[in-house]
């Protein structure tokens, strides 16, 4: 990621529409291929009493492959190749501002539980994006998490991932 950033920054461009479109088509093609293979493995035919388990997956995969090839060819060799920017680095950075913390949030949920992770995530976001004061941040993020806890664990008895803090409190 770091490398790409320095490389791309001078032009302030990242990738064009047609490139992303083509890559997506290739990925879809591969997904279709995997589905066809799995369908073939478990039997893709029509037995005497109806379709076998792999009948529909195989055909679904085949249609995916065919459609993605059409999209791929049309994108690269069509009349109007779309050279427009898919997303500029500046704008994409903002997407990453949500996406990367979200990935860490999910990762940490596994270890410290959903409630603590949520409070930290909301707090961190408020600080980074909204420049709120620490007092407000702690007040809001902790009370949202506490409200969620009260609602799910206590009122509705729906168990969400919990970590050491909750077990300390006896949950």
């Amino acid at each position, binding site marked *: 990621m770091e490398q790409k950033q320095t490389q791309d920054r001078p032009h302030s461009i990242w990738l064009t529409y047609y490139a992303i479109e083509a890559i997506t088509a290739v990925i879809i093609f591969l997904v279709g291929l995997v589905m066809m293979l799995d369908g073939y493995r478990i039997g893709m035919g029509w037995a005497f009493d109806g379709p076998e388990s792999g009948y529909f997956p195989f055909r679904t995969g085949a249609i995916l492959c065919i*459609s993605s090839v059409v999209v791929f060819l049309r994108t690269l060799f069509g009349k109007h190749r779309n050279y427009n920017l898919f997303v500029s680095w500046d704008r994409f950075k*903002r997407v990453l501002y949500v996406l990367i913390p979200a990935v860490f949030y999910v990762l940490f949920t596994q270890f410290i539980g959903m409630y603590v992770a*949520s409070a930290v995530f909301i707090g961190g976001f408020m600080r980074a994006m909204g420049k709120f004061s620490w007092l407000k941040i702690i007040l809001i993020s902790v009370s949202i998490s506490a409200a969620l806890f009260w609602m799910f664990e206590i009122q509705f008895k729906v168990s969400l991932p919990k970590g050491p803090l909750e077990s300390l409190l006896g949950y």
Partner: protein
Amino acid sequence: MEDLFNLFHGFAVIFSWYNLGMMAIGLILGVIVGVLPGLGGPNGVAILLPLTFTMNPTSAIVMLSCIYWGSLFAGAITSILFNIPGESHSVATTFDGYPLAQQGRAGEALTASFTGSFVGAFFSVVLITFLAPLVAKFALKFGPPEFFAVYFLSFASFIGTGRDPFKTMITLMIGFGLAQIGMDSVSGQLRLTFGSSELLRGIDFLIAVIGLFGLGEILLSMEEGLKFEGKEAKINVKVVWHTWKKLPQYWATLLRSSAIGAWMGITPGGATSASFMGYGIAKRFSKNSHKFGTGKLEGVLAPETAAHASGCAALLPMMALGIPGSATAAVLLGGLMIWGLQPGPLLFIEQKDFVWGLIASMYLSNIVGLIIVLTTVPLFAAILRIPFSIIAPVIVVVCAIGAYSVNNAMFNIWAMLVFGVIGYIFKKLDYPLAPLVLALVLGDRAEVAFRQAILGSQGAMSIFFSNMLVSGIMTFGLLMLFWPAITLGWSKIRGTEPPEGRKTD
């Protein structure tokens, strides 16, 4: 006449402070579970079920069914405001509800959705009141071929107007593929699981929907600058009145969706399929079908009316036949047994107080429910004024909770994140997402019904045209599928301009 007498008797049963109190508690709880994506009608009812063991069955069913009505009303709230469906049956509501909110017409959209819900519910209750025995018999006519025909009709009414046929095909097939993951219930074979125990349970469509729509939307709005569009959601009595004045012109949509919903609830096809079918058919028959998806009031009315009509109607087969028409009805069915009532045709004869008390409460609670949700609209609209830097992470948290609680699995949260990214890319590349969701919802059911039917006929396709009912639905489905071609052909023959919808496409 006897029905009316029974109904009055039912009203007499429920008009006590205790029962009315239970009704209010149920409705408010229902609104809460409806708004929270992780919780829904089934959870709400299941959680409170043990508390009702000591209550008398009529009060218990009044309270629990009110949770259901509350959640049916409120599922639309997050769909419209944040593009995150609070309930599975409000997915189709996002298609036009969210664009309306973006245009600053959230108040109108919410009013329309609640009112549509109410109309649908009312239609179904009237149907239950007067046609209960007849309708229960009709439900028995549905075997595998008929079910397949219904799903086919859903697909046919929904698909066919996409701008790019190949991209529509791709998203549709991805939806089917996702629906195929897990155990094939006809042969017991594991499919597309690649030995992973996480994939065993399959991908629930709620996870895909929360990721594609909810998280995907956050990513898009981040890219476009840190805010939600349409923050100015003015809502007051005037907006409600103003919206109500517009509704009579959509009488055809309301009636169609009510009928579809009631039908799907009774057969039972479920509220989710009903909402998609309602939306699809409304789009097909609308003069402005090309504007669907850009914020049409009709596009909010149609799915909500159908969903609520189906939810109410689903109680009929639950009581009369012991088949639950929805997940919530399934939990209620469990309750019935625990209270010592045996569902089945005899319930209507042996437990008059219970059955007619419930039916009477359905009239009353849907009126009270409409008032409750309408008065809370300003409260929900106020959420839109919270700064983006608070609401965005909260939505991510809510998405994560929603994804997790579908089957209490961490894997689902990761899957939700992936779907978020897919949603972001697909939206930018103009891949339509609605076909994906539709195929994911109905794909496996359609496949199972198809294969059950074919098993029964030992491989003969003629089973799908073997009686009046199934041939009728199949023919109607085929008609829907080729509707664009038919209208085009018709106008060619007549030598006139093609209708509005086609020309601008």
